[in-house]
């Protein structure tokens, strides 16, 4: 291919891979460290707090102010930490992005500095006497408690959280990664430091470097640091509940104006199984676009809602449908959604619906890689799945799926949970 773009992958320590994505279209470079460990209720909050602590300060820049000023001097370089789920893995992400050297005003190498800083975030934490600096820890703990409280502020997100806790109450996937107020209160700086050491030792780690520079130096910096660690890598598996046995119904009453309705289905397939692609396409036909069955029938024809969308988490084997409706229309909307799902199972799908869903998925895959963050997460997804498709190849795979395969995917769906968040008033108004 004439296009100067390549992906290379190299093992630099047990369970640690360094991946280079060469791309010269962007004005910035990015480095991402993704570390995965098993989701466990009693350590989830500690890992989430690490995501904040590690980017709050480092040994070399021991306060938030010093680290922030260093980053701003490098043209507003961004360093951030977060935690999320990938199947039943708790991911810790540490990422950095900064402008390319060509744009630096004083000729300094922003890129090399970025690699050193991010490496410092991971390997030179602000630790004294076997614990994180007490002030930093106190700050991070407070922020995590704020974040737990704030989960109630955004009602759509709150409904999702409650839905997941209900549907996966017996599974690791149902664990809230921020922990509970009690579990956060119980955290100590020492415990979190121990968790940090455990993670550096055992987490499967992917480092992705997206840039137009030579990456040998960056790779060397990370390799040298990981060489100092005695690695003992842990492998984790995700439990896939293939079918729902019966339907769990759960309603929460809060002071809300609009009711939130969430339906959860088991999809009887998950990565790396082949039929995941058909499931995704099926879900797109059902409710993934502004020309999907749910959009056209539940929103446009019946005017029941502003949004009614479906989505699949193929790492766990769950499909969700969510909508915001009037209290009096909850049952009507639920019936309308289930009718569309039945239609999918019965093959009531037009060629146009299938074709437009395929085009839409292809468009989404390819467009995402016009973002530097999108390119990075595309490759991370491929790595975690154990595949190596380009967006175009993935689009081709969607394109080859037949109507029969879509219907077969729909027939795998079993309704597991119906969750409702609603107001106490008669017309849906809170008091």
């Amino acid at each position, binding site marked *: 291919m004439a296009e100067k773009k390549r992906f290379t992958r190299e093992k630099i320590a047990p369970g640690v891979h360094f991946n280079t994505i060469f791309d010269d279209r962007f004005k910035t470079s990015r480095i991402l460290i993704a570390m995965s460990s098993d989701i466990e209720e009693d350590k989830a909050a500690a890992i989430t707090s690490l995501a904040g602590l590690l980017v709050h300060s480092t040994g070399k820049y021991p306060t938030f102010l010093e680290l922030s000023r260093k980053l701003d001097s490098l043209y507003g370089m961004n360093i951030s930490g977060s935690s999320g789920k990938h199947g039943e893995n708790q991911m810790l992400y540490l990422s950095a992005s900064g402008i390319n050297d060509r744009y630096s005003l004083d000729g300094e190498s922003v890129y090399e500095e970025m690699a050193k800083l991010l490496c410092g975030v991971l390997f030179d934490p602000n630790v004294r006497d076997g614990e994180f600096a007490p002030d930093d820890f106190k700050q991070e703990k407070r922020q995590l408690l704020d974040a737990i409280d704030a989960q109630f*502020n955004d009602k759509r997100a709150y409904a999702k959280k409650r839905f997941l806790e209900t549907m996966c109450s017996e599974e690791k996937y149902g664990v809230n990664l921020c922990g509970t107020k009690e579990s956060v209160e119980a955290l100590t700086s020492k415990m979190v430091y121990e968790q940090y050491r455990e993670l550096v030792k055992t987490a499967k780690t992917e480092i992705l470097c997206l840039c137009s520079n030579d990456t040998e130096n960056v790779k060397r910096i990370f390799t040298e640091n990981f060489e100092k660690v005695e690695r003992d890598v842990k492998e984790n598996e995700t439990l896939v509940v293939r079918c729902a046995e019966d339907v769990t119904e759960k309603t929460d009453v809060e002071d809300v104006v609009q009711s939130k309705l969430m339906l959860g289905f088991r999809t009887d397939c998950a990565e790396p199984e082949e039929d995941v692609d058909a499931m995704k396409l099926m879900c797109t036909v059902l409710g993934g676009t502004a020309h999907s069955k749910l959009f056209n029938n539940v929103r446009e024809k019946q005017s029941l809602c*502003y949004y009614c969308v479906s989505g699949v988490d193929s790492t766990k084997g769950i499909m969700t449908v969510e909508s915001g409706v009037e209290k009096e229309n909850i049952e009507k909307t639920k019936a309308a959604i289930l009718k569309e799902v039945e239609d999918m199972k019965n093959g009531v799908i037009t060629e146009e619906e299938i074709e437009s869903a395929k085009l839409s998925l292809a468009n989404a895959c390819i467009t995402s890689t016009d973002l530097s963050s999108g390119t990075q997460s595309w490759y991370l997804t491929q790595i975690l799945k154990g595949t190596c498709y380009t967006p175009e190849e993935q689009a081709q795979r969607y394109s080859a799926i037949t109507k029969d395969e879509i219907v077969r995917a729909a027939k795998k769906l079993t309704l597991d949970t119906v969750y409702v968040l609603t107001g106490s008033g008669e017309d849906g108004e809170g008091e």
Partner: protein
Amino acid sequence: MESLNIKTVESSIVGDKYYLIDHPSGLKIYVYPKKGYKSTYAIIGTKYGSVNTRFKVDGGKEISVPDGIAHYLEHKLFESEDGDAFAKYAKTGANANAYTSFEKTCYLFSCTEKFEESLEILLDFVQSPYFTPETVAKEQGIIGQEIKMYDDSPSWRVMFNTLVGMYRKHPVRIDIAGTVESIAEITAEKLYDCYNSFYNLHNMALCVAGNTTVDQVLSVCDRMLKPCEQHEVECIFEDEPYEVAQSKIEQKFPVTIPMFDLGFKENIGSEPISAEKCAHTDILLCALASQSSPLYNKLLDMELINTTFDFERMEGPNYAAILFGGESRDPEKAAQVIKEYIDKTKAEGVNKADFELAKRAVYGSTITDFNTNENIANVMIDMHFQDRELFSYVDAIRNATLDNINKRLSEILDTNNCTLSIVRG
């Protein structure tokens, strides 16, 4: 072939260029090709938003329309006599959307294939209004739910309450989507009134960024754009006093952590500020309140904010304001610390080191904005309607001095003229 006025605008700092075309139809067209990109993003907008509720056309009699009608019109424009635009986009694979803000309404799509067909769909439906009593009635339920969704959003409520507290008369104090009651007054006839007044190509702009060329964009525009007569639309705004209406506004809300916005009302006429002033304001705000500022760190150490703390400047016809806000356990105290810090900085001037850091940070984030088609096209259309030029903003960042920043500070952030808005349980 009509002769076209095509202007090339280049930036050596950014290393990019774009083209500005004065199309004979009256439409201003911006094309910003991005080498190596596979997708293209197009956005067309009209300078007509939620604040334009009273107007006169060609000196005729005043027309007054219900709150939320610009947003309602945005929803309804997707339907034409020959079908729905989403159904047409379904055949090209484009991902389409639209939004209404205080001062503009925009329709957009991004695509990787069949760009010309998608652009044709976009230009066709924005020029083909089709409103009937039935189609208008159908939207009541959908938009009603959109309004109620926002009624449950504390971040949305706290922001609108700030505007209500700051503005006595200006329609920026009214929710963009209106209320369930106000939208009940909307009729097909009123939608046509608004459409015919504001959806005139002379009042609109098209911005395209990504995998495209001027020739490609023009080949579609030349075919699709219908010449239209220019009309003089005068928007009427009551005189707005400088003083805020309320210095504090509070709403009881189901939240477990309170949220606040501290809004500073700016003294502004009907003309937007220049790209230079805009650059100076951005650097100033970054020096004052970004994560590397002494203020941010003080608030953090006092446990008055968390990382949700942020700031923004908003501007439109006859209004401008700067908002600081986020989640806080003690919003009153946070607001007091912010105001004291602003007064102290006004008295002493911005610290030179803070200025230098902020200038670098704003420069870096501006360069980063040129990474994505969506950002580029969105910023171009914003700037078009504010009479500012994209690359001169970048130049102004590079050339900004401490004196510029201090001068700007002396003009804004009057701590005796601000509104504290709080939502709490």
